[in-house]
Each structure stands twice: as structure tokens, then as C-alpha cells.
């Protein structure tokens, strides 16, 4: 799996003898960790797709039962979805938004599991009726470090960074692409000892141009110790970029992806998965979900893009045998329509997971809209997001329970047998 290369080894020795700091951690401690067992099951991949802005998932998974649908129409009045809704096989509670045809077919295959009321409060907070923060920034930050509402953060490490750090066999000086982040400003990989390639849009970057700037420089070994911190970053970038730009033509270009930012991200992800065995985690991001106004039209376009991209990715990777895609958002939106034909920041939202080893279906509870009282504005949380992620990390990625808990800052998640049956 690893490509060895004399230059790199030389460089390692040099770097180690200088006692450098790379990415916040002394190399010594990285080397000391080299014996930690590699827990992940070979070839398993995890894709996180963040819908930024707070997706109104009440319009994606729409309550189907007569009374509940009536209440839904009351809440949403003129922006309620009234036509073209798609049935979910063997599910009496929900129907899908009309633009989500691809998701419907994946659901029929049994490869889509959804959790209609997911959020970040712990059990105690739910019982005390605490509300989560409704700031985009706060919630993004919270999900990126796998935190709980209101916790004190003294040392920040993203949860995917912790995942990478927990693997002892990855060496920071290798040019492996273990992870890729399309949300370059995100913090989910912050604190990673392994350099993570983070680029907003690799398709659009004129790689050749920027590469020429320092390519010779990187081959040039004479360098002062003091300049190595940034040089290491540049090196990490260019070693990986070089591999990224050299993906051979044989890795087929698939034309079924929509030509949108998200479509291109999935297309690029698919190419990378085929080319780089070592690639394990990718974060994708899709913006525009903050629908305070004119929600109906905006959402139609967004859902169509999301659906087509996901379906193309699913087909391109033959039913995602080893891959799992988690679709998440920072919060759901208000039950009621606001004054500008939109909805405002809310609480729980639907998260869903697509993958061959998923046991498809509705895997989280739901409080019927008919049970909400006058003045209630938000969807109540029924699923802790860490139960979803924890189940995936344990059941799909093969991590031990303790390691997953470490990722979640000690939080005790519950394994969901219905979602991924443990073998």
C-alpha cells in the first residue's frame, strides 16, 4: 500500500535529526506512536457531506400520515410541499421531496438510512429542555470537533484529525493522500499530525501555474532549518498535488455527475478513491441552505443538485460497497414559515447515511408533528449525532469502542444495531 522512496526516507532522517516540529507535534511523539495497532478495516472509506447554512430537512423527509401532513401544511402554509412527493418503500411515516428521485431508488435498494431528528444535545440537556445554539458558526465548530452544546473547549482538535492521529501506521512525511477536505476553511482536520490536503475546488485550480513557482525549490534540498515549518507544508501540498494531477486517464471520467460544485466534488472524490487506496476520509461541502426567504425555489434547485450528485456517486462506485456517505447539516429550521416565504434557524434535522453495508430504512425516532404544542418552533431531537457517527466508526471503520469515545471527548455513544448490524 505504501510507496517507498529513498528521497523521502533521507528526508525523514534529516528532519528527525533536526528535531523539527511538524504540524504541532514533535516527530518524536509520532515515531513513538508507530506501534499502535492499525484498527481500521482495510479499504473502508468515510465521506462526510456538510450542508452548510442549516438544511430544512422537513421538506426532504415529509410526514406522510394524514393528520401529521395536515399539521405540516398548517405550519408551512404557502411553502408546504404539496405535489410530486415520492413514496419510501415499506415506510408509512415519510415521503420524499419530488426532486429526490435518486435517493428514492437508493432507499429502495436498502442502502439509505435516515435519522429524522438528529442534533447535538446529550440526554441530560434534552431532559432539561436545553436548546442548542442557533448560530451557524457555533454549530459548525461544534460538529467539527464532535462536541456537546455548551462544553468548554480549551484545546481544539477536529474529530477527523483525531481519527487520523489514532492510526499509528501513517507517517507524516509520506506523500499518501489519507484524507481530503473540500472545505478548506473547516476545522474538522485541525490538529492532524498528517498533512491533509484542503482545497476548495481542485478542478478549477491552475495547478501547473502555481506548481512552477516552487517546483524546483522543492527538489532543491539546501534549506535552512528555520524555514522548514512552512517548507514542510509546501512540500506536503506539492507532493500530494503532484499525485493528484497525475491520475491516469484510465481512471475513467464519468459524465453522469452534474456540472455543479457539488457534482465536481463527488466526481473528484470518486477519481481519488479509485486511484489512492490509502484515502480514507473526505469532507465535502455544499452551501446555500440558509433559506430565510424564497425557500421553495431555492430548495428545488439544491435538492436536485444534491440528489443527482449523490446518485451519480452511488452508481459510479457500484453501490458503495466499502464507502459510507454521511449527509449532515448544522441545524434544522423552524417548523413555521416566516414572513418572507422561508424558515429560520432551528434545532434538530434529518441526517442520512448512504452505503452498501447500511441497513436501510428509518433508523431514528421522530416526534409526530401532531404532538407539538402551540408555540413550539423547533423539531425535537431524538437521535444524538454521535450515535450515528460512533456506529459508523465502530461498525464500518472497525475502530474499538474506546478509541471512538476518545474521538468524542469521552462521550458514551450508543451503538445502533438496526443501522449497522454488528457481525
Amino acid at each position, binding site marked *: 500500500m505504501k510507496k517507498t522512496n529513498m528521497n523521502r526516507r533521507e528526508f525523514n532522517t534529516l528532519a528527525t535529526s533536526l528535531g523539527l516540529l511538524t504540524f504541532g507535534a514533535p516527530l518524536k511523539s509520532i515515531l513513538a506512536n508507530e506501534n499502535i495497532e492499525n484498527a481500521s478495516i482495510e479499504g473502508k472509506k468515510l465521506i462526510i457531506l456538510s450542508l452548510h447554512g442549516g438544511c430544512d430537512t422537513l421538506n426532504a423527509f415529509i410526514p406522510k400520515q394524514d393528520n401529521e401532513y395536515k399539521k405540516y401544511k398548517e405550519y408551512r402554509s404557502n411553502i408546504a410541499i404539496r405535489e410530486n412527493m415520492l413514496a419510501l418503500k415499506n415506510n408509512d411515516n415519510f415521503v420524499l421531496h419530488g426532486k429526490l428521485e435518486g435517493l428514492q431508488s437508493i432507499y429502495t435498494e436498502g442502502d439509505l438510512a435516515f435519522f429524522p431528528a438528529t442534533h447535538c444535545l446529550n440526554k441530560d440537556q434534552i431532559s432539561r429542555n436545553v436548546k442548542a445554539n442557533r448560530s451557524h458558526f457555533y454549530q459548525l465548530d461544534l460538529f467539527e470537533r464532535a462536541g456537546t452544546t455548551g462544553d468548554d473547549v480549551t484545546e481544539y482538535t477536529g474529530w477527523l484529525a483525531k481519527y487520523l492521529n489514532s492510526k499509528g501506521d501513517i507517517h507524516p512525511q509520506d506523500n499518501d493522500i489519507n484524507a481530503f477536505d473540500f472545505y478548506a476553511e473547516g476545522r474538522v*482536520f485541525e490538529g492532524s499530525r498528517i498533512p491533509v490536503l484542503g482545497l476548495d475546488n481542485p478542478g478549477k485550480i491552475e495547478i501547473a501555474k502555481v506548481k512552477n513557482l516552487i517546483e524546483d525549490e522543492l527538489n532543491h534540498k539546501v534549506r535552512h532549518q528555520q524555514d522548514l*515549518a512552512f517548507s514542510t507544508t509546501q512540500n506536503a501540498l506539492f507532493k500530494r498535488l503532484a499525485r493528484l494531477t497525475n491520475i491516469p486517464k484510465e481512471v475513467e471520467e464519468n459524465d453522469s455527475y452534474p456540472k455543479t460544485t457539488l457534482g465536481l466534488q463527488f466526481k473528484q472524490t470518486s477519481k481519488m478513491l479509485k486511484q489512492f487506496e490509502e484515502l480514507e476520509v473526505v469532507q465535502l461541502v455544499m452551501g446555500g441552505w440558509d433559506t430565510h426567504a424564497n425557500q421553495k425555489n431555492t430548495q428545488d434547485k439544491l435538492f436536485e443538485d444534491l440528489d443527482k450528485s449523490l446518485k451519480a456517486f452511488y452508481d459510479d462506485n457500484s453501490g458503495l460497497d466499502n464507502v459510507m456517505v454521511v449527509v449532515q447539516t448544522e441545524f434544522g429550521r423552524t417548523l413555521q414559515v416566516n414572513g418572507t416565504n422561508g424558515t429560520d434557524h432551528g434545532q434538530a434535522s434529518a441526517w442520512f447515511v448512504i452505503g452498501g453495508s447500511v441497513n436501510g430504512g428509518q433508523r431514528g425516532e421522530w416526534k409526530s408533528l401532531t404532538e407539538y404544542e402551540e408555540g413550539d418552533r423547533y423539531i425535537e431531537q431524538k437521535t444524538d449525532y454521535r450515535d450515528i457517527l460512533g456506529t459508523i466508526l465502530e461498525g464500518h471503520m472497525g475502530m474499538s469502542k474506546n478509541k471512538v469515545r476518545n474521538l468524542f471527548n469521552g462521550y458514551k455513544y450508543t451503538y445502533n444495531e438496526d443501522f449497522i448490524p454488528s457481525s
Partner: protein
Amino acid sequence: MPLMLGSFMLTSVYGFTDSDKDGISDNVEYRLGLDPFKKNLPAQGTKENPSPECLPGTTMVDRYNFHVMNRLSFGPNAKLLREIEYHNGGDSWLIDQLEYPQVSKNDNIDTAQQKLNDFIFLSNGFGNSSALQTFATVRPLHSEHQLQVVMGRFWENHFNTEFKKHKNINSEMLESDAFYLNAFGNFEDLLNISAKSPAMLQYLDGFKSTKMKPNENYAREVMELHTLGINGGYIAQDIVALSKIFTGWSIQRDQDAEKCYRYRNIKGGDGIPLKKFVFYNKRHDKNNKIFLGKIITNKGQKEGKIALRMLARHSKTATFICQKLAKFFVSDKPTKDTINQCRKTFIDKRDESDQIAQVLKTLFRTDEFRHTYRNKIKDTQEYILSVARLLELNATKYRGKNQLQYLGRELFRTGQSFFDKPEPTGYAEASSFWNNTSVAMKRLQFVNHILLKKRKSALTRSYSLRNFFKREYGNEVTERDIIFYLLPITTGGYYTGEDVQRAYTLLNPSNEDRLKPFRLKEKNLRNLVSWLVSRAEFNVQ
């Protein structure tokens, strides 16, 4: 070993002779006025006794001066080099910087800033964040009070406010000016400027804090982020008490300011009123409060002043501010000794009007500052501004769009624009928070945009490196002038013979003949400069 390999490769690949094996081929040495049979290496030896045959700008004195310029200004350029020469070294320059700051907006030094402010107001109006970027880049590029501007930026970031929260350009400009003018002053004054600033009162919701509904936002952050630090020993009750102390601190319309010429001529500016601080006694909580163990009885607005004084004089504040300054100027992980020396000055001089200047003097005298060079990575603002200074981009040319408006856009694209940090923490001083492949990539794209882009944007078209060198060295400018100006300045005095060879190849790609005259071409100059500013050497300071 790598060095020998490098020179071997150069001779074998390019087929040049390098008689003295210093990495520079004989032909190039002739052209640069070096002796091809004597090794030209970077200086070795001590400050007092540099090796005689060293490459220009690499002695310990040169390196110390570059160190001072890199840390205490927004980067060396021809003008700053002349100033350092005039002061006979970095040490007396920095004392001069600390002792003669600009103290009033009216002493006519900042004419560039003043002209630009007027320009912004007249042509952009309010609500335009890109105009603010332009505003913030003028002093870093043009002011002679570089250290004061650096410190102004430090305070602006320390007491961070986000423009988007209030969308009032004037609030940010007022605050920014006040931090700049008091940059070396007393910390308590700085804290008061921030607490009363309309930008801060809106950003952390203080303006709507009343006795019925005290808002804790500012009270929490002023202790956690501005003074005591997160482990500063205060408890939840202190936050509640402090929020009550600040009830009634609010903002109102500044009608006097609105009468001025500048404001009346803004395009659509009358839509957003100018703001100033006001205290509403009616909204103030008049009960006794226990804050940090002291009972504070009802004194109206004065209570806030008392609380700020307690915070400014707290020993935890001294530690917190000094470690931040040390991280900013010296090292991402400064030693305890450095921090303690500054802390002592901070506490001893707390009644003096130049408290911060004294702390900085102590900091710049520490062994750690004087002897550890090039161990900090420039943050993105520092990086972009240092490129702009090197190219001597001009803020005062504003026919249509000026160069700095493009620079503002680049700052935005690279993710560290001014007044845009949403979190009250400001941008982190230590690079581990932001140094990643994405930052490296964006910096390269920036260089590509401003120096190499084929489709000429107004920025690439608006300056000429060729003219710059002709201005500096006259029409007879030589390869030697250019290379030994650019290499030391972009590497802080740390470069090798191989770097000289590579620089020469970029500057004069087709002309290895030692007899042909040198022709200065803009394209070659740009290739050379873009290589130099892309290297890790230019990304560290």
C-alpha cells in the same frame, strides 16, 4: 552532502564551470562582479567577526536588521532599508519607533491615510467592506511609523470586532484609529477605548444590556479574551456581576459628526447614522455587585471604569497580555523567562502613559528576541502586505480603482481580511492554528494573480518592476543590483550560492554570455520576484 550534490547537479546539468564550487557558475560570477575563483558563501562567524568573502547582506548584522524589519514592520523594502541605514542599525531604529510615535491625527504625517479616508467616504459610502480593506492596508504600506501600525493591528485583533455585525464603516475606522494612536500607550486606556467603542458595543451586544435583561456577552469576553485569560481565576458570578456593572453602556447617534462635510457627501450615507458612546442611567442596575471579591456600590457609569481598572491592573492580565505579545513578536512558544521579564515591566509601569512602549522595549531586549531568527511563519495578512510592500504598491493612486482595492480582494480570497473575523478571539498568533496546505495553496495563487496572470488585471498592469529598479538604480541598473537587493530582502539574509545561480537564470534566462549587455525585461523580473516570494524563506519571518 546535499550542498555538494546540488552544485554537482548544476555543473553537470547546465554544463557550466564552477571553479570555486560555491554553487554559482563562473560566467554568472563574472557578470555579478564576484570573483569566480574565491568561494562566495553566506557569512559565517560572529557578529563582530564576519567572514570576509561572504555574499552581500548575509552578515550577522544584516540578519539582525532583517529580523527587526520582519518582526517590527510589515516587511522590508527599499525605503525601510534606507531608514535602517540612516539609523545605523535596527536597534536605534526601533527605539526611534517606540519613542516618537504619531500622537495626533492632525500632525499631517498621515496625509496618504487622510486622502484615502476621504476617498473611501466619497466614493464607496457605508456598508462596503472592501473599502474598509483598503483603509486598513494604507498605513501598513505607507506609514513611517511601522511598529506603531504593527501594534495597532495587534490591538485591533486583540479587541476583535466583526464589521458584518454592525455594518458601520465609521465605527471600525474610529476604533482602528484609536488603537493606532494609543498603540504604545497605557493598557487601561486601550481597554477603555474598546469598551466604549460603538463597534464593540454592537458586536458583543453590550448596547442592549439593561437592568431587566443584562447581556453577559461582553462581560464574558472582556475577561476571557481581553484581560484575565480563560484560566484567569474568575467565576460565573463575576460574569453576571460584570454584566450588571455595564448595564446602561450604549450607543447613540453622533449628530455633530454627521454635520461634517465628509459625511454629508457620502453616497447614500445618511441611511446609516454615525454612532457614539452614551450612558443611560435609567437602564443601569443600581444594586450592589460583588465583582472579583469586591463590593461595588452604585456609582453609575463610573462602576464600569472601576471594573476595567481592576481588570487592567490584575496580575493575570499582565501575564495574559505579555504572553500574547511574546507569541506575536518572538515565538509561537515563548519561554517563561521572556514572558516574566515583560510581565514585570507591565506591572511596574502600569501608571505610566507609555506602559506598552516600555513593555515592548523589555521584550525587544530579551535574549530570545535578539537571538532567535526566522522561527515564525507570517500570517496571511503579514504575508500579503509584505509582498505589496516589496512591490511598493501605492495606495494614493485612485483614478477609478486603486491598487489596494485589488489587494483587499486578495486578502478576502486568502481568508484573512481585516475586520472580518467572526469570532471574538481574533486571528491566532501561533501558526499551528492556521498553517495548512490550503494556506500554502492560496498564497501561491495570490502570487500567480498579482504577478503572473496572463489576462492583465488592473493590479498586474498598474505597476512595473522595471520602473521600480530604474527609479532606484538609474538606467544603468545591473544584474548585481537587482539580485543582491532582492535575495537578502526576501530571505532575511539567509541564502546560498545556488539561490544566486537560480535567481540569475530567472533574470537572464537566455543570456549566459559574459560579454553581451544586460537587458532588463519586466517578464523576467516578475518570474524572479514570484519565485522569491513563493518560497518558504519569504513565508517565514
